[in-house]
């Protein structure tokens, strides 16, 4: 050995630590606690990532996809919407509306105009043989029943047709029962065979055989033993009360009511508190300072918003600025109410209403003079009152709620160009001119959901998606769908006190 370095290295290299350091179970318990905490943390991170992906997907949905087309195809949806839009139109008759709904129906057979959806279903779902048998039985019953069927009986007939068309489904038994009861009551002699014909089992066939005798006999003389399934007295089931199952769901025009937004599901591991007995010298996660025990908070909010493209100009950037008040209900929940001004970009009204361009050209002996006015809608200003519920956990918060809004003003820009043969074109642009508010809906309702991250005790960052259920414009014209409007926002909230 030449120096202390070699001496030390040699001593430590030749050392056998097995003898010196005895393993104790206590050490492993500490290490195990550390490992468990890290695993919980990692699991939580995975959940947060999934939540983030979900939030991103939601945002993408708000941005890219149109809202709630439902189960119907897009064309069908447009037809429906156009139908609903033109509901108040006097020019469109009831027959036209029903034809829009009952597309591809060869024979509506809706003489009294009471059911528009039931008949095409029957046409589509009922086999031809059943149709014929119904017709045959109808003819036969006409000879047996002497009195004229009342209006209620007709309705019942329609209802029973609807029942019969669902005979293939699980409701076949119920249909058969209802038909037999009506046969027993002598009120309807048509639907029973149709319903029973839809039931392929032997019992159904027996019922068919019994039908003719049941029709011929008065209801009081019908022996109950011949028709075992009849258990309910006919009086308890009046024929008018057609059950709602008669209309199959496939052809009901589905209204595009958007599903309400719900809070994100909170994963279970995220709620598990850190175990206090874990020994660690330094906390892995940054400990946030507790919020002051204060119920009320008041502050400013400002956000930039990206809207679905609103018009041909492709404007999408809007903003919202205002005040908010927050009331803390308990440790995790709070309510927030605000008032803010919202700027929605674009949305030029239809040409016929208020925003035309105009050109006047005058010709003189020495030349010409041309004046051109052009008015363009830059956006709409709303007064909005949002109300939301917030859930907090550490610096994070999730929120969801609704907002009502009122149109304050329409911001137009005017471009005036004058040009003549003696001087070059001169253009004047006024960016803030008031526009006509008549083509727009004056109030609206919207729903939103988002997240908030508290940077410190005063300032927090928030991001949320919002969907406005009320369309911006009152109408876009015949046959054009006027939908709601989605947007995403990113902004800051500053708590003043």
């Amino acid at each position: 050995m030449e120096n202390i370095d070699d001496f030390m290295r040699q001593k430590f290299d030749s050392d056998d630590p097995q003898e010196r350091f005895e393993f104790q179970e206590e050490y492993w318990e500490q290490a195990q606690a550390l490992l468990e905490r890290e695993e919980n943390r990692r699991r939580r991170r995975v959940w947060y990532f999934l939540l983030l992906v979900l939030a991103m997907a939601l945002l993408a949905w708000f941005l890219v996809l149109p809202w709630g087309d439902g189960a119907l195809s897009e064309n069908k949806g447009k037809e429906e919407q156009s139908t609903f839009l033109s509901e108040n139109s006097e020019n469109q008759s009831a027959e036209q509306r029903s034809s829009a709904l009952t597309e591809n129906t060869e024979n509506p057979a809706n003489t009294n105009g009471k059911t528009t959806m039931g008949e095409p279903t029957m046409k589509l779902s009922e086999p031809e043989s059943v149709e014929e048998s119904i017709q045959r039985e109808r003819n036969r019953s006409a000879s047996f029943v002497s009195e004229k069927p009342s209006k209620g009986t007709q309705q019942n007939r329609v209802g029973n047709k609807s029942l019969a068309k669902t005979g293939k489904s699980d409701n076949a038994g119920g249909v058969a029962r209802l038909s037999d009861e009506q046969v027993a009551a002598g009120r309807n002699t048509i639907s029973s065979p149709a319903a029973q014909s839809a039931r392929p089992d032997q019992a159904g066939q027996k019922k068919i055989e019994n039908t003719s005798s049941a029709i011929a006999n008065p209801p009081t003389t019908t022996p109950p033993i011949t028709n075992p399934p009849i258990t309910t007295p006919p009086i308890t089931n009046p024929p008018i009360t057609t059950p709602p199952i008669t209309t199959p769901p496939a052809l009901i025009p589905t209204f595009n009511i958007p599903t309400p937004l719900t809070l994100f599901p909170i994963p279970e591991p995220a709620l598990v508190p850190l175990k206090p007995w874990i020994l660690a010298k330094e906390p892995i996660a940054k400990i946030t300072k507790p919020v002051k025990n204060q119920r009320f908070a008041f502050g400013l909010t400002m956000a930039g918003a990206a809207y679905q493209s609103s018009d041909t100009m492709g404007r999408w950037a809007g903003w919202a600025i205002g005040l908010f008040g927050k009331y803390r209900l308990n440790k995790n929940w709070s309510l927030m109410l605000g008032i803010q001004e919202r700027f929605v970009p674009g949305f030029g009204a239809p040409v016929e209403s208020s925003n035309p361009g105009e050109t006047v050209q005058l010709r003189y002996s020495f030349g010409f003079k041309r004046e051109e006015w052009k008015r363009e809608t830059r956006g709409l200003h709303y007064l909005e009152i949002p109300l939301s519920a917030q859930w907090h956990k550490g610096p994070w918060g999730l929120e969801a709620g609704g907002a009502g809004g009122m149109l304050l003003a329409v911001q137009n820009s005017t471009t005036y160009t004058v040009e003549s043969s003696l001087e070059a074109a001169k253009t004047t642009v006024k960016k803030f001119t008031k526009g006509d508010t008549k083509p727009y809906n004056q109030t609206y309702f919207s729903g939103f959901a988002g997240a908030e991250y508290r940077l410190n005790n005063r300032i927090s960052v928030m991001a949320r998606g919002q969907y406005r259920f009320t369309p911006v414009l009152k109408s876009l014209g015949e046959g054009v769908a006027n939908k709601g409007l989605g947007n995403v926002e990113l902004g800051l909230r500053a708590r003043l006190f």
Partner: protein
Amino acid sequence: MNLDPQLLLAAQNGDRKAQSALYRSCFPLLMAVCMRYRRDKQDAVSALNNGFLKIIQNLDKYKRDEVPFEAWIRRIMINTVIDEFRREKKWRELTVFTEHIERAFPDEPIDWNEADQRLDVQHLEALLRRLPPMTQKVFNLFAIDGFSHHEISDLLGMSEGTSKWHVSNARAQLQSWIKTEYQTA
């Protein structure tokens, strides 16, 4: 240290029993490293557990064919200890403090064979712990664990000159103490 690859795989996949077995196997080696760098046993165990957590987390990156497992976990342990030391951020004050330490140089050369016979590792560990923390770390890294001054300067955020100074200071101190120790032993 011969470890079953299946054990490593199971420990990597979160099998608690395998992790426990691995912990027992690695404990003496890691404890020896920690005791050289830390002040007391409790500190050393705490550092060891943090290092073991890193070992478990990085088991998938371990390549059996390239590095012996022993060297690999030793390196992770040293990095963990140095990271913790750096995070404490007390070393700057302690560095200032070291300048006031009296540098005692032995008058006579040390008989290393005699020192080897009379002093065991525990004695030497105790001597190392008597050094100022920064000097202790630098000397450990340079003299025993084989780091260069350049690497040490990177690890501890100091210049190479400072690193050399710490090593020189540690040598002088240790020689003086060793001589005293084996003379009195």
